[in-house]
């Protein structure tokens, strides 16, 4: 089945004129050279130096939209402060921008007030840019709407390497515990950065090759939930948080290991894992009925055989095991169900009184 798809993918890939990401595309830019702060405090108009920005419809490599006044001591806008002419040369920018932005269109919307978005500016010596925070974009409803529908790439060239700090999906705090809850209403946002191979490393337990801790033993800083001797503590974890196991594992998964360890009735060689008195000693803290009421998923790790199971022999109507249903069961299941559901017929071979 998969061969056809593989061949197709190989054929498609064979047509690639592959270019590995070049190191120079990610190299650092030279430090910034212009002291913005005194000019902002002096209420100098941005357009004195950035006049071409009003016509800029894109962020282009090698273009900074800067034209410094070379002789400020003689310029009418500068000479009040400048007695001399500092030698400042703006180095060319070589890296490609990772954003797409139309200054011309946006400046019209903010009536030429750059400070609406540029709340912090670079100073001489800064090694990194101080772009407007994303809240500047999402202060407009249209872009907040883009955010809500994960339409990132019209503005972001790509999201690779971005850390989601200081935004709605900060992977901070106990993120491992809450990420599922945050993702359920917002899966589109997750998919903006993560394709499903990333999620599948943990969430595709039935099709993945091996546990992440086996494949990546060197990734000591990652939060793998099965670290260390998980085999010994799995029963504690499963009892403490049954829903967590059931996110990825079905009963047959548990049973597959229990079979080779001989602790399930489906094994060829069986050793009974239950304590003495398990079947009959009602009222003790090791009676199977109480255990089943408390943690039925542990029972399912060996005894989940669909409609027929080892329980039926004793618990069918008239059997020695008595009524196995929990309290209030009948309130939620009317007397007609045994007639309609084949599973019920396994025990309820006769009409209910």
């Amino acid at each position, binding site marked *: 089945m998969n061969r056809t798809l593989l061949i197709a993918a190989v054929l498609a890939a064979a047509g690639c004129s592959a270019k590995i990401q070049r190191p120079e595309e990610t190299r650092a830019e030279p430090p910034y050279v212009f002291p913005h702060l005194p000019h902002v405090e002096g209420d100098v108009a941005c357009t004195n130096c950035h006049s071409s920005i009003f016509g800029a419809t894109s962020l282009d490599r090698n273009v900074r939209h800067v034209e410094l006044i070379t002789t400020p001591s003689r310029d009418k806008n500068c000479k009040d402060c400048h007695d001399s002419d500092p030698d400042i040369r703006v180095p060319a920018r070589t890296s490609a921008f990772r954003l797409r932005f139309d200054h011309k269109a946006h400046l019209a919307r903010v009536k030429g007030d750059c400070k609406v978005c540029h709340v912090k500016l670079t100073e001489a010596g800064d090694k990194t840019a101080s772009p407007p925070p994303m809240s500047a974009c999402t202060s407009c409803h249209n872009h907040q709407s883009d955010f809500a529908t994960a339409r990132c790439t019209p503005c972001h060239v790509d999201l690779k390497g971005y850390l989601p700090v200081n935004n709605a999906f900060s992977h901070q705090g106990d993120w491992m515990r809450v990420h599922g809850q945050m993702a359920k209403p917002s899966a589109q946002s997750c998919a903006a950065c993560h394709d499903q191979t990333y999620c599948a490393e943990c969430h595709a337990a039935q099709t993945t090759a091996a546990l992440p801790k086996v494949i990546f033993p060197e990734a*000591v800083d990652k939060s793998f939930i099965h670290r260390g001797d998980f085999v010994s503590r799995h029963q504690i974890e499963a009892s403490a948080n049954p829903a967590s196991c059931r996110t990825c594992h079905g009963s047959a998964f548990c049973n597959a290991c229990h079979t080779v360890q001989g602790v399930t009735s489906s094994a060829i060689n069986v050793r009974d894992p239950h304590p003495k008195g398990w079947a009959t000693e009602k009222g003790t803290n090791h009676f199977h009925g109480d255990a089943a009421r408390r943690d039925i998923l542990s029972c399912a790790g060996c005894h989940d055989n669909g409609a027929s199971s080892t329980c039926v022999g004793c618990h069918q109507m008239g059997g020695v095991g008595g009524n196995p249903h929990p309290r209030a069961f009948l309130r939620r299941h009317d007397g007609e169900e045994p007639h309609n559901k084949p599973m019920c017929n396994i025990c309820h071979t006769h009409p209910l009184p």
Partner: protein
Amino acid sequence: MRRTPLLAALVLLASPQVRADTVEASSTTFLTVGKDTRFKGGTKPDLVTVAPAFEILSVSARDIQTGFGEVEAVLSTWGSLDLGERRWDSGSDSNFAGDVTTGYLQARMIDRHLLLRVGRSSVPTGIARMIQIDGGYALIDLPAGPIVLKLSGYGGSPTSQRFRDRSGEKSWNPTGGTLAYGARAAAAVPVKGFPGRGLELGAGFNEVLDHSHTAREEVGGDFRLQPLATSDLALAGFGTYSLPDRRVSEASAALSVSATRKLHLTADWRFAEPSLLLSRYSILSVFSASTWNEFGGGVRYAFLRTVTGGFDAHARIEPGLTSGTHTGVDLAFNLDGTFGRTTAGAEVSYLDSVVNGYTGLRVFARRDLGRVFVSGDVLGQFFRKQINGQGGAVTGTLSGGYTLTHGFSAVISGSAGMTPYLEQTFEVMAKLAYNQTYRVQEVR
């Protein structure tokens, strides 16, 4: 089976005159050799050697610009050969095993208002709860003034390992079944302010059938609220209601907020009825109506630029051994940081459940030395009640790696330990990995 030629055709059809902005390819080849136990009769299990060799291949191409939309193609697959005793989790009756972990084609069309996905993937949205299916998923968002309406649906066959058996109790899929489908309708109300500010409300249903029998039939809802203009404070939650059993099967809520630049807080609550996580066709599903509750929170604080400490505390209310309830606790403390080329951390955990509990201690470190790295990881756990006659377990792993040229890297790792089931355990692993990102591909 019939979908594969269709997928293949789509791959090829999509090829002419298309351009993918990012293509990532990876290959991981590794061999592990270790000890495991098998019970073959007698009084105690036998010790066996398990030595599987794996090859994992992944190719993904994103932002493929085509005439009809933006396409993403993802294929992640693996194969293995057991050189010693067969692994218990290979899902195969042969020494050879393999599977497609994830494989799908996804297209965003109509100015990206419509998303279509076909293949093997998971459905994370709403109450579908990451169900992995071989099938399709569609999502359309419709801007309607200040709100965005979102309609999505999925359908397919729940995935099972190596296609062995998709039926409920025999399936490795937690939901089992032969057919699953569901839908969700949501309204998002974006509000100007901090990124993500607004409200999203969703409602949906999901149904899983095991041949003609109902395995799961639920309705439910989810929400996400980020109310403040200048804060990332977000509250999210969901709840599901089992129609055959007329009971709430699962519910949860979580709150996350950066109180300051250095301090992050979380709080969460979860509720589950474990019996309702079983297939409705399992007779075990009508034996119990116990409930399980967990609530608590966590705090993370950045002490220094690169050092972070955290503490999480949760209480769990679970059924008692014979009657009533038991309140257990789950505590975790961790401290980790980066010091130059070294990353190091320590964790202490404490879990108390009605059946047993343990205290865990873990320390780890990794040192990068140019192309070479070494890492170590030691974890000890001490049980409240003895397991197999033993009070604790200690395991440790030491790894070393070297970054080769052209995206290749090699890792050798060794683990050893003493556990309740293995007096002495050793495992070695050798891995050759290839990871490469290609940009601006011309695909014909």
